[in-house]
């Protein structure tokens, strides 16, 4: 148990001054601007927005600078700022079918209508350090362009859906549960699980997803489709009586296609896992869709193999890195009173034990 302590004000002030100086680093090196972070460390910015659960690239860049690049600390800062703002309402569900895609690939259909668009990806790079980047200066040449086909990019699962080969998702517009407003209750609906997963720690979600691939709650996932791009955000404005676009956000969406042998009530068909995350965050979106699918075992009448990724309570209660950090790191705060009582207890127990041992030895000697 943590018991409040007093004192140390000067030491704390000095520690913060030291922190500010260390954050700045060598003054002979130019200071990093938040605009530079926003533009050139965009994937860090995206991760902080996704796990901070707040889409604002400028704020995320500031949080990263303040946190000295510690992304979980930056997520914490963003979450804390978020709580100071009023919430005006909720958007209409975004239409990812109308996404302006910069990337769209399918691992299941090579001839996907609309084509496969690689976009700005690390895939197919050699993962060799590029020392040219260590030398500052030259702008990269402009990326090549090509005529844009006029056809839209329909969701790939839609094709399987037509033949009834994949389980379909029915639209309804009930107000979804919100874990930022009410404490999470278990068992959780799929909507609540997805909210927890999309803001969950990328490393944790990745490891869980990986565990399902290695056999702990295996779901045989294929990436049916992965798309990245911007979507419009629309909200109903009461003063106007109609919906308007209030902006646009970049999202990553992953739909997995999974084997399903059928059950007593369902014929064999493919099932789906779903991932949707803020920014270009594809590792997270893919991992999210695998974990989403693993958590659906009960609804699909599958066996509980006891795998961690199938355990809703285990997944949802440990996915949030701000909560986890808070509880983990509080043990470094002064626990003097607690520890003092433990110290006394252990002294007493030792004294009793030593007396007993001494008595036993004496008995043996006699």
């Amino acid at each position: 148990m943590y018991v409040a302590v007093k004192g140390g004000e000067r030491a704390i002030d000095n520690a913060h001054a030291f922190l500010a100086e260390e954050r700045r680093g060598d003054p002979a090196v130019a200071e990093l601007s938040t605009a530079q972070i926003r533009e050139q460390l965009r994937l860090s910015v995206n991760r902080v927005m996704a796990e901070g659960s707040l889409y604002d690239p400028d704020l995320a860049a500031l949080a990263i600078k303040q946190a000295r690049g510690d992304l979980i600390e930056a997520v914490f800062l963003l979450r804390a700022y978020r709580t100071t703002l009023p919430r005006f309402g909720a958007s209409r569900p975004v239409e990812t079918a109308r996404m302006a895609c910069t990337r769209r690939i399918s691992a299941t259909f090579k001839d996907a209508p609309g084509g496969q668009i690689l976009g700005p990806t690390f895939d197919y790079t050699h993962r060799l350090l590029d020392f040219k980047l260590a030398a500052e200066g030259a702008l990269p040449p402009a990326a090549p362009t090509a005529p844009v086909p006029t056809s839209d990019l329909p969701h790939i699962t839609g094709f399987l859906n037509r033949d009834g080969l994949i389980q379909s998702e029915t639209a309804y517009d009930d107000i979804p549960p919100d874990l930022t407003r009410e404490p999470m209750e278990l068992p959780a609906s799929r909507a609540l699980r997805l909210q927890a997963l999309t803001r969950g720690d990328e490393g944790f979600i990745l490891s869980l997803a990986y565990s399902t691939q290695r056999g702990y709650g295996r779901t045989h996932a294929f990436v049916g489709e992965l798309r990245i791009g911007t979507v419009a955000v629309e909200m109903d404005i009461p003063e106007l009586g109609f919906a308007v676009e209030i902006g646009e956000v970049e999202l990553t969406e992953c739909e997995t296609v999974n084997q399903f042998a059928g059950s007593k009530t369902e014929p064999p068909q493919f099932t789906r896992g779903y991932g949707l995350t803020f920014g270009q965050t594809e590792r997270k979106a893919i991992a999210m869709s695998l974990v989403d699918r693993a958590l659906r075992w009960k609804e699909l009448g599958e066996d509980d193999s006891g795998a961690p990724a199938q355990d809703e309570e285990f997944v949802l209660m440990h996915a949030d890195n701000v909560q986890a950090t808070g509880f983990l790191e509080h043990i470094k705060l002064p626990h003097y009173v607690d520890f003092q009582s433990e110290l006394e207890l252990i002294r007493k127990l030792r004294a009793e034990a030593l007396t007993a041992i001494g008595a036993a030895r004496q008995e043996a000697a006699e």
Partner: protein
Amino acid sequence: MTEPSRRDWMGLLARACADRLAALMPDEPEAAFLRPPEIGTVMVRGRIGATGAAFNLGEMTVTRCSLRLATGEVGHAHVQGRSRDHARRAALVDALMQSPRAADVQTRILAPLAEAETAARSLRAAKAAATRVEFFTMVRGEDK
């Protein structure tokens, strides 16, 4: 070109770059705030499996503003981000678009914003299109 609807121009103003809008509006008409610019958030929702039930994805920052021009027209704005100036200017343009100055505002402010947005979107789409691939499945021994 079809007549722009209020929905269209409000969306355009919400998505516009705040600095670009400021540059296009050197003079502002007199107006009284009905609701001074206020920063808040909107919960962005998605759909399970893209087509299913709604779920909460995360929030985005939004600044809103309502005002009335000296000539009586009321303008509203909800714009992405945390710029109070952006929200105020967007509300002013919304009000002006309901005034006799609409045609002028359309030409001088909205048209350049729309043009810049279309150009930026087309360029990004063209760069993405240049990365379009055709994958071929290699013929394997057993297929022969």
